[in-house]
């Protein structure tokens, strides 16, 4: 890891932490129920990918791990809060929810729906990279429960069959669940692909492992399946661990660490202050563009009589749309 990368990681870790604290304190915002919160390892993993702002970098679906990976891919706290607060200024104009959204320029692809599906979608994106001979790869975080869905298997099978450059991270689930396959390495073997399990590994170790997986993927070596254990239990500790590692190893001084923390916090606080003042969405604008082939909304509000004899009707009360 370079010094820059370490600083970014620290910064994004503090950003995420401040975001989650702020949301909890806000009284009016809520994380979506299924979000597992910030596990700094998800930021580390995401940092091993190629980042860009012109749509030519790697692609990441943060899935249940957002906001970590999204921050690593350049999503801003302001965007998060707009999304959470359903502001008209939010990335999806408040139409869709969840903690991730799509911004293909920065390589972010959002999803708030059923598990398993994004492994299919990212497999197809990775296919496009391979087809064009680009040095790009796809990264998708999925709840471990995605393994229960047939959709996930179809996606992984497709990725494995075509050896596309994709890294699939399965995040261990805190909840009970049933019928779940925990033998991720055996699943990978069944599909003839690589597998890695991450548990108490150091951040530097995780970084090296994932960098390797990304390199192999981009060189045509095929998918890697990553089992990320313990994501829900020690989700905070891991960031502190990382910070103290960076200190101990001499990558940053106490003073530098504190100023990184403060800068991250200031940015997040600013975003909180800002979204309170922002307006909600305007229905006509937000919804107009996305309907295909829909007729006018309320046909009985038409002002002209439908009668052949041309008798005019009084204009109807009520909102007339379109």
């Amino acid at each position, binding site marked *: 890891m370079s010094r820059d990368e370490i600083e970014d990681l620290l910064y994004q870790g503090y950003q995420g932490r401040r975001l989650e604290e702020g949301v909890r304190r806000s009284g009016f915002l809520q994380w979506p129920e299924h979000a597992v919160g910030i596990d700094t390892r998800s930021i580390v993993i995401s940092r091993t990918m190629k980042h860009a702002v012109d749509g030519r970098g790697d692609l990441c679906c943060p899935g249940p791990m957002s906001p970590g990976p999204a921050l690593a891919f350049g999503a801003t706290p302001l965007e998060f809060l707009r999304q959470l607060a*359903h502001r008209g200024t939010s990335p999806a104009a*408040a*139409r*869709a*929810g*969840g903690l991730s959204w799509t911004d293909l320029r920065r390589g972010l692809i959002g999803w*708030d*729906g*059923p*598990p*398993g599906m994004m492994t299919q979608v990212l497999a197809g994106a990775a296919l496009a990279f391979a087809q064009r001979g680009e040095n790009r790869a796809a990264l998708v975080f999925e709840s471990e*429960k*995605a393994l*229960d*869905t*047939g*959709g996930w298997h179809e996606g992984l099978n497709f990725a494995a069959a075509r050896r596309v450059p994709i890294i699939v991270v399965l995040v261990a689930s805190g909840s*009970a*669940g*049933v*019928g*779940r396959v925990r033998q991720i390495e055996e699943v990978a073997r069944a599909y003839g692909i690589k597998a890695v399990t991450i548990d108490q590994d150091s951040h530097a170790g995780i970084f090296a492992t994932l960098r390797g997986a990304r390199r192999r993927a981009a060189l045509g070596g095929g998918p890697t399946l990553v089992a990320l254990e313990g994501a829900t239990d020690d989700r905070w500790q891991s960031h502190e661990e990382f910070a103290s590692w960076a200190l101990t190893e001499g990558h940053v001084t106490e003073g530098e660490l504190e100023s990184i923390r403060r800068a991250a916090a200031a940015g997040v606080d600013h975003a909180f202050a800002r979204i309170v003042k922002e307006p*909600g*969405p305007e*229905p006509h604008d*937000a*919804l107009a563009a*996305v*309907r*295909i*082939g*829909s*007729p006018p*909304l*309320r*046909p*009985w*509000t038409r002002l002209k009589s*439908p009668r052949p004899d041309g008798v005019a009707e009084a204009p*109807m*009360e*009520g909102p007339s749309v379109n």
Partner: protein
Amino acid sequence: MSTDAPVHVTRTRSGKPATFLEAIAEALWEEMERDERVFLMGEDIGAYGGAFKVTRGFIERFGASRVIDTPISEGGFTGAAAGAAHMGLRPVVEMQFMDFISPAYDVLTNYVATSLYRGAGPLPLVVRGPVGGGNRGGPFHSQNVEMAFFHTPGLKIVYPSTPADAKGLLKSAIRDDDPVIFEEHKGLYRAPHCRELLPQQDHVVPIGRARTALEGEDLTIVTYGLMVHRSLEAAAELARDRIRVEVIDLRTLLPLDEETIVASVRKTGKLLIVHEDTRTGGIAGEIAMRVNERAFEWLDGPILRVTAIDSPVPFSGELEDFFLPSVADVVTAGRYLSRY
């Protein structure tokens, strides 16, 4: 009934009004007590009691082999339910949100719906779960699913609007030999105004028969689910203009109770269809066809509809309220049609 029954299935027995959700729970509980072939499947319905706590306390009473926690694989466990039904059991499958019935679309339309047709015998199976908007659940936790299945011969679709109907129709669905999709609107689950005293004895409401929720002479509103309540509100407002509205609560969408609709339209001459589901391809179309086929001459105005707009269900409150049909929309349309 066992004495240790959870409180939400004992309202009727103790003479108290039940919510819509309690009515559902009572139906499940009573049917499981009545018939040992009835069993439940779904995500986290066991110890956790289900996302909406409908089955809280069930696993303690009926055991883990009749209250089965499933993996997230709606297609797979619906297929398994079909197999169990072939072997004489009567599965009731819970979709955590009915939106998640989509992965089971293939098995429901191609396998389950065609069983009788293919000579594989009747397939008694109920798929039930929460539907509908207004809860800020966004596109994946707010859908109405009837039109995904309405076009499939071999299925029945039930969508009750009151606790008594919910209980009586769910009991019928469980006893029915055909597969039944059973939709429960989240907005009714705990709505206080919906609470009602349910009949004490075994309360069964036949599938396939609509209910006249309000009698009137001037205008027929055909609707179902939460929109029955919105339509009754609108009817009350229209009554102030001396417009006497008849409100038909379909209760069962498939098979459609054509007779009741046709009889009402022949009486009033005006038909407004109100559904929460989106507009294009909604059930209004089939109703319009049936009325054309059997009551065209009686129509004194066009058949109109009030529906959600053609969009996924929006997340934000502002957008969702705009998206959903409102009482004011029904009143506006009702007034327009009555003056036609």
